[in-house]
């Protein structure tokens, strides 16, 4: 049976947690808004990853980690060993260009960066292909997911905290009427200035994010900072209903006599 859905409903952290707990083997693909990524797992451990169509090959990973120059990468592409990552790795080791440890560290870094990048995706269609593993010619590693999940959870916590502070991006921002002393000597980054330049009762925070090509979490982070600095506040619409409270109802008492009643119910249902 398929394991598929949208990151909007089931985050990367939750997916990795599921794969870790269930010790799954297979390939997870995620089609994000602008790119495709895939991760392969063996017995619940991360062994391989690929970003886009060309990522995941040893040459591109070494290039990504600045262990090869552009010229070296191009030159290696033309060698027959380039078709097989394991053969290419051996070639580089035998040529004393890289050690095995350096290659493995490079793979680890590439995979960690890829997963951390995926944590920032809040939208994307995912699918887990049970039992599908990378081709034999690829170099695989074994990375425990616990630490990656911890880091993901930390990033998610930050996201959730920001979401609590700024729950709805469909509201506009306004400059505070009397910015206090905290406003003095304030230094804004380029992105913060861009957000500030769009502040108007006509622009919702979502529109500001879109105009500046900011992700929701980045926009929330900036707005939260500006709010803490006393520069802006959220324009809340009037008359919002308060959240409903959960009244607690006592269950009917469970007396030993009721055990007989339950058994009668069970007998009747069995007979249907």
């Amino acid at each position, binding site marked *: 049976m398929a394991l598929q859905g949208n990151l909007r409903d089931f985050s990367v952290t*939750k997916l990795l947690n599921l794969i870790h707990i269930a010790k799954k083997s297979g390939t997870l693909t995620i089609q994000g808004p602008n790119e495709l990524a895939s991760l392969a797992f063996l017995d619940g451990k991360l062994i391989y990853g690929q970003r886009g169509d060309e990522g995941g090959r040893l040459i591109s990973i070494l290039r990504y980690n600045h262990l090869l120059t552009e010229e070296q990468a191009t030159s290696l592409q033309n060698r027959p060993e380039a078709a097989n990552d394991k053969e290419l790795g051996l070639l580089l080791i035998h040529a004393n260009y890289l050690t095995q440890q350096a290659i493995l560290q490079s793979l680890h870094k590439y995979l960690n960066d890829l997963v951390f990048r995926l944590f920032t995706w809040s939208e994307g269609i995912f699918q887990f292909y049970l039992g599908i593993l990378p081709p034999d010619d690829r170099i695989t590693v074994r990375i425990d997911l616990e630490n990656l999940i911890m880091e993901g959870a930390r990033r998610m916590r930050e996201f959730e905290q920001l979401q609590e502070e700024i729950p709805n991006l469909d509201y506009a921002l306004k400059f505070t009427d009397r910015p206090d002393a905290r406003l003095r000597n304030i230094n804004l980054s380029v992105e913060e200035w861009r957000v500030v330049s769009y502040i108007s009762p006509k622009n919702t925070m979502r529109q500001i994010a879109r105009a500046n090509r900011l992700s929701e979490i980045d926009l929330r982070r900036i707005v939260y900072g500006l709010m803490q600095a006393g520069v802006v506040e959220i324009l809340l619409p009037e008359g919002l209903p308060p959240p409903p409270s959960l009244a607690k109802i006592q*269950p009917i008492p469970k007396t030993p006599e009721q055990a007989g009643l339950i058994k009668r119910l069970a007998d009747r249902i069995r007979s249907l």
Partner: protein
Amino acid sequence: MQTVKMVVTGPFNSGKTAFIRSISEIEVVSTERKISLEVEKVKETTTVAMDFGRITVDDDLVLYLFGTPGQKRFDFMWEILSEGMLGFVVIVDSSRPETFREARFILDTFRAYAPTPYVVAANKQDIPEAWPVDDLRIALKLDPSVKCIPCVASDKEKVKTILLELLGSILQEIESGGKS
């Protein structure tokens, strides 16, 4: 005549009405209306107040099954329906992960209303997109002691299994003096 009730709850379009229809001895008294919101138009009608099914045990005992409305804007009915229930079934559409978070919220809300035993029915296990029960259990963060049972709400035998599992949990709680 003694009457007892169980509540069948779960997100919109999870299969609550079908579940009750499969087992009720009477034609389910349903309060379905045509769906007005575009986003909820994955089916033609939905339950707006409650579904109501009945299983007569004998002259002295009747079990009523109440299905909660699936749409969030009718959640004020939940508290009313949960009053005095023996236990409840949370129906989850295993093929729609976008509803898992809501299913968890409903589960927690009903537990807050009345700490009675409950089971989770992993519904729509007959369609290819359904998440396996073990994965669903992890996704819903269910405690290992909570029963999460595969279900096809239109299959009477499967529905019987769910209700019997719930009755088993209730019996266990009674026999342990309400400590489970």
